[in-house]
């Protein structure tokens, strides 16, 4: 609906249509922001995320990468919190605080990349299943349902085990196992959009499948994709921690999951090194909770039926 009408010759009018569209978009964003601001939990989540992302991005400014080097560790083994090490040390004498700070980069990077992968697959499958119909839809939905029922962790473990441990493996394992929810959501929304009259108009004007899907369906399902993405990042961060804990991540990179994995294997639990356990765990908890709060708030904005839940 934002595309200029074909065959309109005068250029100034075209730009004005485009300007109008932009104006409308800005107004929509403004409206959205006003409604989002009403969601208190959502604002808390957003503020928390901003702080965490800024800290993760600023890690190189705050400390040297040498803090992660085992050979240059200055502390003792599993030293409790002190002035020099505010959150204690790990089993090789590195500062847990700095490890957590640097770990945030990997955890967030993997979480977001994996989610993007899942979103692309989910959106493609969902729109195709909603748009085409017939045997293709039947096939796509059967595969989607199959993925929904299947134990995700088991599938991810199997995938990661055959691909070998690395960051890419984790991203693929999470992405490939977490798209079906999005696909279902997008398909439902696509069906709703396609029933609207302006799509009939587009078809009557000779719009092809590609044009219909990218110009009419996709912009309308995007808000839902956004809400779903935010919730998905939360579970992708959890999945990253889980797979790293099981030893499927890149052993040379520090992430929150790999920290907990080493804490478990080095006996920090029975030693009583609470600082080594609590710090990365609470970091995961905080990020996941923030993304979940934001996602729920977005859903409430886009879907008024859920408001106040």
């Amino acid at each position, binding site marked *: 609906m934002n595309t200029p009408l074909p065959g309109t010759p005068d250029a100034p009018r075209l730009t004005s249509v485009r300007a109008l569209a932009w104006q409308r978009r800005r107004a929509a964003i403004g409206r959205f922001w006003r409604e989002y601001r009403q969601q208190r939990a959502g604002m808390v989540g957003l503020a928390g995320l901003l702080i965490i992302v800024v800290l993760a991005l600023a890690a190189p400014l705050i400390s040297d990468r040498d803090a992660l080097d085992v050979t240059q560790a200055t502390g003792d083994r599993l030293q409790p919190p002190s002035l020099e090490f505010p959150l204690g040390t790990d089993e090789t004498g590195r500062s847990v605080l700095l490890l957590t700070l640097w770990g945030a980069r990997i955890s967030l990077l993997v979480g977001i990349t994996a989610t993007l992968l899942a979103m692309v697959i989910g959106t493609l499958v969902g729109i195709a299943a909603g748009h085409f119909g017939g045997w293709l839809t039947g096939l796509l939905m*059967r*595969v989607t*349902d*199959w993925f*929904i*029922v*299947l*134990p*995700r*962790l*088991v*599938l991810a*473990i*199997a*995938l990661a*085990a*055959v*691909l070998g441990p690395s960051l890419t493996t984790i991203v693929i394992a999470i992405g490939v196992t*977490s798209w079906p*929810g*999005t696909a*279902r*959501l997008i*398909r*439902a*929304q696509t069906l*709703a959009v396609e029933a609207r009259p302006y799509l009939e108009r587009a078809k009557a004007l000779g719009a092809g499948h590609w044009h219909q899907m990218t110009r009419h369906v996709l912009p309308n399902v995007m808000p839902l994709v956004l809400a779903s993405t935010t*919730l*998905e990042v*939360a*579970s992708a961060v*959890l999945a990253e921690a*889980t797979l790293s*804990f*099981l*030893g*499927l991540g890149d052993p040379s990179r520090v992430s929150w999951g790999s920290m*907990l994995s080493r804490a*478990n294997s080095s006996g920090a*639990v*029975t030693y*009583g090194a*609470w600082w080594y*356990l*609590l710090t990365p*765990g609470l970091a*995961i*908890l905080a990020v*996941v*909770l923030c993304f*979940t*709060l934001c*996602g*729920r708030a977005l*859903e409430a904005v886009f*879907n008024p*039926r*859920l408001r*106040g*839940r």
Partner: protein
Amino acid sequence: MTRDPSLVAEPDGPATNPTNASTDDGGRRPGGGDGFVRYLLSKLGGAAISLFMVVLSAFFLFRILGGDPVDALTRDVPTTPAERAALREQLGLDQPLSLQFLHYLQGVLTGDLGESYQYQQPVTTLIGERLGATVLLTGTALVVAASLGLWIGARAGWRQGSRFDKVQVGLSLTLWSAPTFWLGMIIIMVFARYLGLFPINGMVSPHTPPGFWPQTLDTLHHLVLPVLTMASVIYAQYVLVMRSSVLDEKGGDYLVTARAKGLRDDMVRRRHAVPNALLPTVTLVFLQLGGVVGGAILTETVFSWPGLGLLAYQALKIPDLPLLQGTFLFFSSAVILANTAADLVYRFLDPRVRHA
């Protein structure tokens, strides 16, 4: 309204997110079939296709992506090309893929899942030995989490916005955001390391006297912490799902009727709202079984509980591909079969599906 249980799915899949259980209104196909036989056949057919897809994906994952089994078998032994070729022929790897798959399928159907590299024992035997421990842990956790979670969730949803509701939702969201294995480690540290109330790991202490009662009591003693860990995460999901489901029912006209009859608020909730809210919840509970399996793997790993999850973890460490493949096949098939059973039971629970 038709509620085909396999279709009223939660948009974010089993393990991801219990918070938006009621947003997916699309994707429902009309009609449930003409009769029970047809329903039964369609469900069983669907399950058969799903199981076939599991076997196919296991074949693809472990045979095609997983590299050459000959490499894995001869990793530590120097071999000549002739010996390798002989081994390939012996394992049937020189045949075309389609034929290999048929052999593979035959093996799976007859319960031959190969031999574990690590234990030098058939995978089927290993799975059989460990199954009991997993069923005990998962079953107990599920019963605890379901009874508590559904009850609390219904109460929270009924008094939406109250302090009780807010506390419960906050608690559930926090528990749900916590990684299972981390929760387990914290629980070990608090209850076993500092308070010393429960054993740290394992299922039975080696110095427990033989005999039924001492063994059972010791197992129960070991069971407490793993169940607490596993149940906490599942509990959070159930609270959120049940609450959302009760909220959906709360506006129903039949509740106005029930109140107009003069029923106490408590009775309206227990006798009218909750039974209706339970139906969609049951579906979601079964759809989330995959997540429960994931929780079992993590809990067993942290607590060294000698079940299938620990077996999968130990296989992953090597990596022991035949064993990993066996646990993959077993867990996936178990979840699919449980979902199919739920579909069939659901038909008796919900008259709307029965008469559709």
